């Protein structure tokens, strides 16, 4: 794995890359933790008209006036555009209003299925994780979703032990067969690089490597023979402006680990 440079941390790079996946004007269903920060950064930089929808019943189109650690922090309610029920905002997700959502994960597989529920070991529960929260809903119902997580071998497995949040299942045609209306994962942003999905096979495809990380390093930390795009790019580093904004949003480095 790449080590932190003096200029930015890996987490800052990840959040910046995530933010760049949001287009201006899009409706974004914002998950907790790193995804929350990615959305706020996008709002402050290239996507000022993006609208944030939060599962606890919040819609807002301006960043919270103070740094927040959870989406329920009072600054995130202050001058919100709508305070409402979870079922209302889940309705927005399910009826096709939400363009994109962000999900963190503990375990992901080659078809982008996420596990945040159970890590198994020879048929027994080895680790009980917190569960879905809204992740299963976001993965199933948003127009597309973006996965953010650490790139470690035990997290990148050929097949997840439990599908909490469906990606492309076992490949082409699986989502349609399963009856999922949303588009599925469009990108996986990790501590080492960025992956997208082959439009036909729906298998994960490495497209970008973070500065200081080697291809070898990524392949060694992926639990299956990870395919790579024809031309591999280097992930653009955060701009000074992005870093400045990000540090205003997370001044103590709680999420971005400075």
């Amino acid at each position, binding site marked *: 794995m790449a080590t932190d440079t003096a200029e930015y941390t890996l987490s800052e790079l990840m959040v910046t890359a995530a933010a760049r996946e949001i287009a201006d004007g899009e409706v974004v269903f914002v998950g*907790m*933790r790193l995804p929350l920060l990615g959305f706020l950064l996008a709002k402050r930089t290239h996507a000022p008209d993006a609208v944030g929808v*939060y*599962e*606890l*019943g*919040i819609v807002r189109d301006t960043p919270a*006036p103070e740094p927040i*650690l*959870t*989406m*329920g*922090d*009072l600054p995130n*309610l*202050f*001058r919100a555009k709508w*305070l*409402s*029920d*979870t*079922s209302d905002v*889940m309705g927005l*997700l*399910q009826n096709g209003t939400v363009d994109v959502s962000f999900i963190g994960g503990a375990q992901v597989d080659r078809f982008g299925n996420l596990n945040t*529920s*159970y890590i198994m070991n020879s048929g027994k*529960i*080895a*680790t*009980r*994780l*917190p*569960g*879905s*929260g*809204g*992740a*299963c*809903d976001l993965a*199933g*119902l948003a127009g597309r979703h973006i996965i953010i997580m650490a790139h470690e071998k035990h997290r990148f497995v050929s097949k997840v032990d*439990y*599908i*909490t*949040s*469906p990606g492309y*299942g076992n490949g082409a045609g*699986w*989502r349609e067969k*399963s*009856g*999922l*209306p949303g588009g599925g994962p469009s990108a996986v942003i990790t501590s080492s690089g960025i992956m997208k999905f082959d439009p036909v096979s729906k298998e994960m495809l490495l497209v970008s490597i973070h500065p200081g990380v080697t291809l070898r390093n990524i392949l060694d930390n992926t639990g299956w023979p990870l395919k790579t795009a024809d031309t591999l790019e280097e992930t653009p580093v955060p701009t000074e402006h992005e870093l400045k904004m990000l540090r205003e949003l997370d001044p103590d480095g*709680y999420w971005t680990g400075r």
Partner: protein
Amino acid sequence: MAPASKLMSLSEAIKQYVPDGAEAVMGTSLETLIPFAAGHEIIRQRKKNLTLIGPISDILFDMLIGAGCVRKTRAAWIGNVITGSSYNFRRAAEEGTLETEDHSNLTISMALKAGAMGVPFMPAFTALGSDLYKTNQSLKKITCPFTGILLTAVSAINPDVAIIHAQRSDEYGNAHLWGNLGVTREACLSSRHIIITAEEIVSPYVIESDPNRVITPGFRVNAVVHVPWGAHPSPVPGYYNRDHDAFIEYRNDSKTPEVFEKWLRLRVDNIKNSDDYLRLLGKERISKLKLRKQMISEPVNYGY
């Protein structure tokens, strides 16, 4: 014309409406307004075999599990929002002493909505393709009678009791709640009994000045308890901010059963009332959590 007051002590409310084995829905606003004080009283009374129902719970369920009160959870997420996994839940689930029904936020909200609407299920598109079906008997696949397309049917949940923290209530159970509402409205309507804990007890006139702000009809509420700071360390719109440090401290205080026992004694069992709780919290911390910036709602008129 003069209905009976429902005001009672927290201990009385929990004694009456949370018997051993009860199904209780709590934490219905997700990260805000979590009824921690009521949860702590359940622990003090060492209730047994409870089923806890809720979307994300943010450490409240973990505390109750650690104290041995819980047989089963029906929830979407159980952990510590800003630190990740929570230890008592992990231990109980990994040791097999806790039964878990795995929901998503949408399935739990549809389960409660079905209960509220008096129907046995609600349809949704979520969970299709997921393994929630393997660990949740409340989900079944159905096809739409009009379109033939596949859906998830979520079975209704009608909890024995909803425990709701609100900003202000009159003594008859008519309570104003504001901020994000989560699944609170459906949780109240679906539950057989309702306990309201409130930051303030106000006159009915205050509540009736804004009937749209009432969270559920008071005639269905059974107990009203005055508990200032009753949702700490979670935030309460209009009253106090989230106490992030408390969530981080709890992470450390629950890492092993031994440290958790100490935490339980100090922070729960030794606390007799709100005053004790606030004294332990300390003036400095309390003042740090208070609102520094105000935003007062524009009035509306309900005259005629």
